[in-house]
């Protein structure tokens, strides 16, 4: 017998929340991006948990796709971070306020 799915779901939700909080409070683009990865992991954990409770492989398959997306995002995202860093020599998003209003 396994622990109830609820535990994992709460764990995932908390992880999601930590990721979101990190995204909102960290100023480094890289770390914000890592927080997005945390959030995606929370999603994955949720998917897997539901897959177990529903006895459905679909949830696990979905995780597969989320991972692909995460990989693709990282590729592009880090490219952008690097591009921005090249220009501004900083990854702090707080310095990106040229456009507002």
């Amino acid at each position, binding site marked *: 017998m396994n622990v109830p799915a609820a535990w994992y779901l709460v764990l995932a939700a908390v992880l999601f929340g930590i990721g979101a909080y990190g995204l909102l409070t960290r100023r480094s683009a890289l770390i914000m991006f890592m927080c997005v990865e945390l959030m995606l992991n929370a999603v994955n954990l949720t998917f897997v948990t539901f897959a177990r409770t529903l006895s459905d492989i679909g949830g696990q398959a979905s995780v597969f796709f989320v991972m692909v997306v995460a990989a*693709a995002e990282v590729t592009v995202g880090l490219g952008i971070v690097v591009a921005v860093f090249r220009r501004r020599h900083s990854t702090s998003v707080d310095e990106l306020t040229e456009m507002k209003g």
Partner: protein
Amino acid sequence: MSLTIPSIHYLALLPVLTIFGAAVVLTVLSALARRPLRPAASLAVVLAACVAVLVEGFVQWSYVADHGATTTVAHAVVLDGFAVVGTVAVALALALSALVVYDWGERARVFGAEVPVLALASSAGALLMVQANDLIVVFLGLETLSLGLYVLAGVDRHRTGSSEAALKYFLLGSFASAIFIYGVALVYGATGSTNLSSIAYFLGTNVVLRPGLLYAGGALLLVGFGFKVAAVPFHQWSPDVYQGSPTPVTGMMASIVKVGAFLALVRVLVSALGTQLDTWRPILYALVIATCVVGAVLGLAQRDVKRLLAYSSINQAGFMLLGVWTGSAAGAAGTLFYVLTYAPVVVATFAVVTLVGGVGDTRHAIDGYRGLARRQPWLGGALVVLLLSQLGAPLTVGFYAKYAVLSATLRSGGGALALVALLSAAIAAAFYLRWVMVLVAEETEDGAERVAVPRATGLAILVGVAVAVVFGVWPGPVAAWAQHATLLFLP
């Protein structure tokens, strides 16, 4: 356990394959070619793909009209009128954008096939979204669309704003994506599937006594979509990104993203989660009001036309949301009509802005337009028509777009909502007209130079204006098409 590959109805997949194929072809070509690919060649490939998609759309339409809506590839893809119209809209917007990009690329010294390839691939993402019948596919389409645009936003190395836009768009976009996919996960948990048909079937055959999980999932999905369509309060990326991105790319954002995201939103909300409509509607109600009003009011304070258009497009998104709010066939048809006609108009608008923006893509202060309509009556006049269409003046297609969603809203008993939306349009009229006023104003003494109108961009503008005027005078066919398309999607 033998593996049975699901049957594939290739007609349904043809548009995506065509567009994505074109992207691959271009990539390969540019990789093989010793020198950067000539822009004309890229343009030719994109246009050929778009034309092909339009033809395919025609074939698909007649197929759907004869056989009704079908799904294929294990029900992950749907071939219905709604998808066909969305496909056509995306192809049209892509073709027009490509025309603009062609001229812009030459001036901005952005050579090579990268921009067309990314544009094609993004559009493929949008196509995935409009015909997706599975939340995972929607998500993948969304990501494909977005990733391409993240890069495109930052493609202009000559302006700092471009990279800022790219990073902002990217960070916020991936945040929204994470929210969206979390929503997918919760909906999956609530319904046991990510397939829209299965979800609809599950919700249709079971009474969900404890809908909390479903609600949570739906809320997260809504926020994800809300971000993509720039609904208030999830809109804040859009003015900055619109302003910073290269102008032709902004045109794509305003057109293709809206088509993809709205059609997917309608499909998810109306067809899959339709039974829970009463739950979503208050949220959408608030979203519509906030989006309409904030878009209109903030537009008033803008001196940069790209930001102005960003707020304009937020305001327009509010109207498109109206159709979603109704949750009815008429509303879906209204939203469909809206995005279908808005897309070419907004691309053409940004085409004009691209031209006026000049070589560095920097002259976007509204004062830069002073006397344009007097100096260059055709270009200025075209812009005026495009703005009037977005404003919703009669005899432009924008009027009927607004009319379509409003009548649907009133059918669903949303009198107050319709009134608020229309009043926001009246506020928005103020900033459109201020722009128009600048256009027709007397020239200043220094006499700005003429804006050159290259042929391809000119063609794009012309098409946009033609859509605005022709369907403004004679909206019947498009209206009937949109209505029919919706009937073919919602039985």
